[in-house]
């Protein structure tokens, strides 16, 4: 083929954002956020609370007081950083590993425990009533986020849908169908891919041969960027920009947050079966909480006394939440028919009676 017939018609770049190196020192372009300690300290507190909650939840599961639980150990910066950039009227679409985001949005710890403890009442929570509940079928919440964002656009409301996904979710058609539509309709929708490198036992390299997950947005016609997902400053800055752009009519964005799942997939999983301990150990050096603490301490914005006080407070709040959770008695069996339809059809009322009779027999 003669050379002159070959024309480059499109070229794309994917940027990675990082402000805080693994040792807690500043790197890259200076960010105003890095000096904004009144913003950073609550983020730090949110991450520490999330981890304390997670550890307790695992303990409850191990002692038979909680069902299977999905740990977010090591990924706190993604959940907390993104949620902190949202307005309360925005709508969150969490995956099942986004406890940090839910807590930040006002969901109570005892409500999250109630859900993982096997009680639907946990999803009727104190957080924003318009937020979606945990999504278990991976990636299937992405089309909902597109529907919600379409409603915002139609009603000309300055609100944004924020959809949290894992790296595994990017292999699903659901996610691409939603991204494609969001691009076509220029929707106020921010996709955040929490790339923790593992979808249960399947590593990223078996998930995709693409260099980045961020570039998947490019095929859908909108920008995608990478951030260091263990750098909460970068996550927050990227989320803030993406959400502001979406709110202003700038259309969808995708943020790929690079992090690492330090824990098992869930309490029902044993990651030692499929990944070497050395790999996990190496990633502990990059985890987000120690990193931000080192930075704050180095900047004299955080003290040992404050650290101790925070740890004690988190411990106390978690224990209190556990007490509340354990005090919630089971629902009457018959309530499984509640909220099945707006009004239970006559056809199923008989089944509800049948259950009542069996239980009381």
């Amino acid at each position, binding site marked *: 083929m003669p050379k002159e017939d070959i024309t480059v018609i499109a070229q794309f770049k994917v940027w990675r954002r990082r402000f805080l190196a693994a040792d807690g020192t500043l790197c890259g372009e200076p960010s105003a956020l890095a000096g904004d300690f009144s913003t950073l300290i609550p983020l730090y507190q949110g991450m520490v609370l999330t981890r304390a909650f997670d550890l307790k939840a695992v303990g409850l599961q191990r002692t038979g007081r909680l069902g299977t639980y999905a740990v977010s150990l090591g990924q706190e910066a993604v959940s907390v950083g993104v949620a902190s950039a949202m307005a309360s009227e925005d*709508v969150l679409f969490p995956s099942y590993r986004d406890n940090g985001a839910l807590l930040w949005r006002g969901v109570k710890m005892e409500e999250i425990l109630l859900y993982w403890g096997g009680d*639907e*009442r946990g*999803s*009727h*929570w104190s957080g924003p*009533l*318009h937020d*979606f*509940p945990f999504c*278990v*079928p991976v990636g*299937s919440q*992405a*089309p*909902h*986020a*597109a*529907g*919600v*964002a*379409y*409603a*915002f*656009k*139609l009603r000309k409301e300055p609100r944004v*849908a924020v959809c949290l996904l894992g790296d595994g979710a990017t292999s699903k*058609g*659901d996610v691409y*169908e*939603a991204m*494609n*539509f969001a691009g*076509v309709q220029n929707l106020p929708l921010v996709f955040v891919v929490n790339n923790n490198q593992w979808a249960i036992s399947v590593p990223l390299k078996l998930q995709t041969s693409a260099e980045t997950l961020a570039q998947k947005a490019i095929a859908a016609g909108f920008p995608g960027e990478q951030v260091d997902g263990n750098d909460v400053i970068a996550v927050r800055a990227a989320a803030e920009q993406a959400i502001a752009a979406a709110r202003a009519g700038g259309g969808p964005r995708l943020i790929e947050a690079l992090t690492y799942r330090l824990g098992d997939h869930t309490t029902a999983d044993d990651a030692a079966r499929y990944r070497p301990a050395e790999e996990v150990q190496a990633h502990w050096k990059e985890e987000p909480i120690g990193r931000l603490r080192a930075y704050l301490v180095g900047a004299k914005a955080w003290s040992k006394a404050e650290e101790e006080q925070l740890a004690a407070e988190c411990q106390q709040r978690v224990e209190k939440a556990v007490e509340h959770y354990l005090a919630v008695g089971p629902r009457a069996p018959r309530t*499984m028919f*509640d*909220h*099945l*339809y*707006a*009004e239970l*059809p*006559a*056809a*199923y009322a008989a089944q509800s009676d049948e259950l009542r009779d069996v239980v009381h027999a």
Partner: protein
Amino acid sequence: MPEITLVEAINLALARAMQDDPSVIVFGEDVGVNGGVFRATAGLQQRFGRERVMDTPLSELLISGLCVGMAAQGLKPVGEIQFMGFIYPCIDQLVNHASRLRNRTQGRLSSPMVLRVPCGAGIRAPEHHSEHTEAMLAHIPGLRVVIPSSPERAYGLLLASIRDPDPVVFLEPTRLYRSAKGKVEDNGEVMPLDVAFVLREGKDLTLIGWGAILRETLVAADVLGNRGISAEVIDLATLKPYDEKTLLASVAKTGRCVIVHEAARTGGVGAEIAAVIAERGLTSLLAPIARVTGYDTVMPLARLEQHYMPSVDRIVAAAQRVCEFA
């Protein structure tokens, strides 16, 4: 009042719903500029604009998922899946989300949505365009499944489905789109969901069907009438939750029952109805229940489809067997 076709009745109901309620949004593949491949949404985009009558990408899963998101935000989404053979990517959304959002959030969020789905054989369509797989939908708790068999019921039941606070899959028999005609008053009045319609009263035998096959069923009832057998014909209309009461009352009266459906037999809605009649109406039965259905084969292409679908002859033969049972 002139007669209109079933597809025109659908169009009339959509226009009425959009006129009455600004939160009603219609979308799907080719529904906007083109007015739908069956013309069910003809003229709606011109009348209500591109945002409320929206052409989507070719993305069935997306269409069903958009419904869930829009509904949770207070819109009234009416999505269209072009043919029932293409509904399967939506099953995840229907089972895991649309039908259970209200229950799993204990009423905090819900999915009042309608998914319109043309279905059935008899129009000599290509492969995958003639399916009638309603049973898999009727199995899903939290869902309503509705199918009209006349323009009047298409209008009244579609309006009812759009106003219903829960998710509804609304099946539209393609074979009736243009061939079924009737007078429909555009008065905005709904027909009740979860109610079966007695199309013809009779005393010797109950024929139960839904959708397009009621046409053959009614002809069969005529043939039986000429032979001195008085058949009651019931249009089930809502397949989930269905109206047990009307069915049981009819069987209590006639003592004999034939269930007719276009879908394959095994695990079909007919099996469910037969089970309930056996459970709760056995003592009034004078003969075993019979089913006349599509076969447990892959839906054949056009050349054999008429042999797959229940014919008047098959229905009459089954009815005679049931009536001759000692």
